[in-house]
């Protein structure tokens, strides 16, 4: 893992190492100083909940209840650490694996699975949670995020100095996305417009089967230099460091100082999706190395070592996690598609004769079937 390539661990910001020891950092340490043990237990709980949901979703896919699942296993620290650095006025654009961030934005977790059961393309109201819907076209949303950030600035929601009002955008994408033209254009537009946006790269090391070394020869954060955007690399499996770095970056953007790039180096412990087979392209030694760096384990070790993870708290969290799994399972199994007629809704905001014609045709087609069955 040494060297100067995109997998280098040299110079990563780290505040809690994988053995559960706190690490000092002169610059970013102060951005975590406010965290209490309650906060850290909260992060731990969020990560446990996210993983429980994710594990249940994977099972549901294996049982045929979901068409596909994109697991977040192993990326909980990157998502919870950053998600918990957001404030209400901030707006987040996820890609499609940010279930942990969704949890921090108050999304009803089971509802995420309506998309993966093939019932609809999104569930929540983005404006109600300041959390955009998932985007599957790699990197496409990074441009939307920049435009949204510019518009926040125009609306006077940036740099006013009022913490209840000032916000910024955070936009999540992966290592593979950094090769997309849209992501590079997003950084150009963000830079020249001084847009209040934090680009949060989760470098989980793989774009399906392709190593990040197929995307870049240098750490991804270095790409930002060419755009004139400050950037930082952080240990993405260290929830404390991710939180500190994101807190710094969001404050930078909210203050009107412009965009930031964060690269969180993490590891996708599971498959890309449930259709994938990681044994074809990576070694078990590699997986073992990263299993030792599990983002949840190090927080547990740290808190337990200090006697700050009481048994009753842990039991309560484990029970909550189990309950989330149960609720998720029951919800998913209960969902049936509504009438097919609904697929014709919302193609346009105003009536469009082609959609109306298709809908009318389908209605009479269906009616003709029913008639035959009745007469039979």
């Amino acid at each position, binding site marked *: 893992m040494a060297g100067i390539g995109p997998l280098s661990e040299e110079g990563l910001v780290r505040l809690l190492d994988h053995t559960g020891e706190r690490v000092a950092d002169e610059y970013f340490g102060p951005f975590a100083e406010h965290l209490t043990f309650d906060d850290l237990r909260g992060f731990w709980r969020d990560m446990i909940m996210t993983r429980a949901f994710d594990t249940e979703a994977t099972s549901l896919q294996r049982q045929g209840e979901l068409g596909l699942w994109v697991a977040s296993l192993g990326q909980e620290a990157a998502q919870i650490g950053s998600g918990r650095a957001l404030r209400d006025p901030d707006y987040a654009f996820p890609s499609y694996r940010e279930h942990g961030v969704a949890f921090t934005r108050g999304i009803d977790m089971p509802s995420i699975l309506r998309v993966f059961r093939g019932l609809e*393309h999104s569930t929540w109201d983005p404006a109600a949670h300041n959390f955009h819907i998932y*985007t599957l076209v790699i990197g496409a949303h990074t441009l939307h995020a920049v*435009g949204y950030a510019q518009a926040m600035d125009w*609306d006077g929601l940036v740099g006013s100095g009022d913490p209840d009002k000032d916000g910024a955008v955070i936009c999540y994408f992966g290592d593979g996305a950094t090769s997309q*033209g849209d992501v590079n254009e997003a950084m150009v*537009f963000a830079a020249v417009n001084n847009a209040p946006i934090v680009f949060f790269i989760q470098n989980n090391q793989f774009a399906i089967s392709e190593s990040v070394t197929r995307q870049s020869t240098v750490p991804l954060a270095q790409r930002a230099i060419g755009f004139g955007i400050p950037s930082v690399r952080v240990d993405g499996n260290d929830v404390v460091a991710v939180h500190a770095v994101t807190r710094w970056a969001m404050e930078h953007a909210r203050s009107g100082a412009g965009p930031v790039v964060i690269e969180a180096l993490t590891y996708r412990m599971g498959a890309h999706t449930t259709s994938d087979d990681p044994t074809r392209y990576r070694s078990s030694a590699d997986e073992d190395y990263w299993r030792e760096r599990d983002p949840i384990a190090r927080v547990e070790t740290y808190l337990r070592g200090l006697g700050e993870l009481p048994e009753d708290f842990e039991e309560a969290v484990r029970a909550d996690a189990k309950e989330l799994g149960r609720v998720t399972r029951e919800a998913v199994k209960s969902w049936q598609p509504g009438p097919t007629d609904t697929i014709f809704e919302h193609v346009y*905001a105003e009536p469009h004769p082609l959609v109306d014609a298709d809908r009318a045709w389908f209605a009479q087609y269906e009616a003709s079937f029913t008639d035959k069955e009745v007469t039979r």
Partner: protein
Amino acid sequence: MTAPTHEQVSSDRLAPEGLAPVRTLTLGAAINAGLRAAMDRDPKVVLMGEDIGALGGVFRVTDGLLKDFGERRVMDTPLAESGIVGTAIGMAFRGYRPVLEIQFDGFIFPAFDQITTSLAKLHYRTKGKLTVPLVIRVPYAGHIGAIEHHSESPEALFAHTAGLRIVSPATPQDGYDMIQQSIASPDPVLFFEPKARYWDKGEVDSTRVASQLDLADGASKATAEMSKARVAREGTDVTLMAYGPTVRLAMQAAVAAAEGGVSVEVLDLRSISPFDYETILASVKKTGRGVVVHEAPVAYGTGGELAAHVAEHAFFHLHAPVLRVGGFHMPYPGSKFEHDYLPSLDRVLDAVDKVMAH
């Protein structure tokens, strides 16, 4: 701040020299005036594009707007079409109404992904929670003697994608009205401007669209109206269907055919998605013959869609198959050949003769 009334707009901006509400304008100037009126009406309307500021656009359609509305509302963007469309989508999420200029037809393709996978689908994907009222202005089609990528007609590539509306004005009046209707529509609109017709003059009555947009349901009415075809000339023997750059050609063909005793009805389709099939079918059922004229290549094109629809819904009224006159199945050739590549008066009349011979 309340938006100025159209009366004020007319006196302040549209008619700075004290001209009447009905004036003679070129198509380019009419679109410019329409943009101005829309920006006056709604402070959320912002313009984005390459060279649209100080230069006023390569065709000068945004001329003077930077001076009057400032850099925040008339934005020279980085040279990146996907970035222009993509960031505008994000602005629309916050209630802005971006009007984008893609400099030339052949340069829209870097934005094809944003237009077809994001812009067209977001209203559907969010079950109506988000509307994305972008207008993408595209100077298109040929006859300006340009080098390659500057004369193309890619409308069919977008018409195939549900979620987009596609219109093309052929007259200054429509340029003025339809740009404002497109901006008022809650749906994304591709606004194809026939660049060779930018300098054509015509009368523009600025009061028509203003009274419509002032209504409570103005956006709905505007969307419906810009989706209607116009009977540009009445006739009884053949229906010529054209839009954008070929409307003038179809009118010329009608005049020429009349000399030979053939009565041609000309439809200015105005809207490509949706096509106004009510008007189209009424006309073809009356004449019994149809010819479609567009600059885009014929194969897999909008003319094929029209011909198929007419065959399906007016088969027993037809005396002849619907013919298509358009470009060949090839990249746009060097401009010294464009007069042979594009539909010409002779080729349109040849098609009229053929359907009359049946």
